[in-house]
């Protein structure tokens, strides 16, 4: 349980006996600046009409931002490997669920359209 802590205890004025890795405040500020720049980029991309690429771009930038937050703010770079696996595993399941259900709903969507056409009348509360 106590392995892998000796590696990082030599810098940043860390107090002796501290558990875990202390982030220097300069790093934290740099991370925030990066995130703000990425926010500006994603807003800027959205102003241009790129068709389908807009979605890809938005999700891509969001993924980069999320990675930055997890790696530095959430200390995942310095954390136990297993915590990283939990995150990756959860994301994989999220992707699988979204992907497969989207795939299926798009395949049966024509049935829904038929149903709506048959009913004709728009929905009323």
């Amino acid at each position: 349980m106590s392995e892998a802590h000796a590696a990082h205890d030599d810098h940043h004025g860390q107090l002796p006996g501290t558990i875990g890795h202390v982030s220097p405040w300069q790093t934290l500020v740099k991370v925030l600046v990066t995130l703000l720049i990425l926010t500006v980029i994603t807003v800027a991309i959205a102003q241009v009409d790129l068709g389908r690429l807009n979605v890809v771009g938005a999700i891509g930038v969001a993924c980069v931002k999320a990675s930055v937050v997890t790696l530095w703010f959430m200390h995942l770079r310095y954390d136990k490997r297993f915590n990283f696996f939990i995150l990756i595993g959860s994301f994989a399941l999220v992707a699988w669920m979204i992907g497969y259900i989207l795939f299926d709903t798009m395949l049966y969507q024509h049935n829904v359209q038929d149903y709506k056409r048959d009913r004709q009348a728009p929905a009323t509360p």
Partner: protein
Amino acid sequence: MSTGVADHETKHDTLPARPPELAMHFDNMHQQFHSGKLGMWLFLGQELLFFCGLFTAYAVYRGNHQEMFHYAHYFLDTKMGAANTVVLLVSSLTAAWSVRCAMLEQRKGLLITLALTFICAGAFMVVKYFEYAHKLHIGAVWGGGFHVQTADLPPELLAKYPEMTGEKLKDMGVGSFFAIYFCMTGLHGLHVLVGMGLYIWLFIRALKGHFNRRWYGAVDNVALYWHIVDIIWIFLFPLLYLIG
């Protein structure tokens, strides 16, 4: 941790003294700290899958109703969304900084960063309140309840599609978009409120001087939770406000 249980301490001849914060079933502070942290990470994995249902609903409706989503996204104010993004990112910085302060035993810095995180969260909720109030006011709500007058449509939407009316949007099923919008941002907002509660709790504990370099798990774990709330917003913002 388990006060009360810790009183029944058994003999530990090899250790000079067990720290008072160490629960009876752990061997050392490292084990205790990393147990709590692993528990938190599993909880965060759970959180991702909890939100996953909403993201799936979003993907399904967006995938099958591109046009409707395009019109609907004009209802959301990009400026307010961007402002909220910045507020949350700053709060993430202060949250991460509070962990640093706790580890360095900087009590004043800890109190300041915890308070700043709370204030940012509050600011987020205030902006959210104005957004919600406006939508409810013009009738941009979920399901069949959607009843926006043509005059109340967003100017950008009318500028681009002058022939658009509230009735047309309603028939298009724009209510589904707002169902998803309110569920996603509402659930996220609930998480922000819970986070605010947790930061009050941390602030009180920090005032009492509970935390030190080997016993700051609560600050760390709440910060992890807060970062996940931030990450979810990082995805919500472009998906709802930006892409049309």
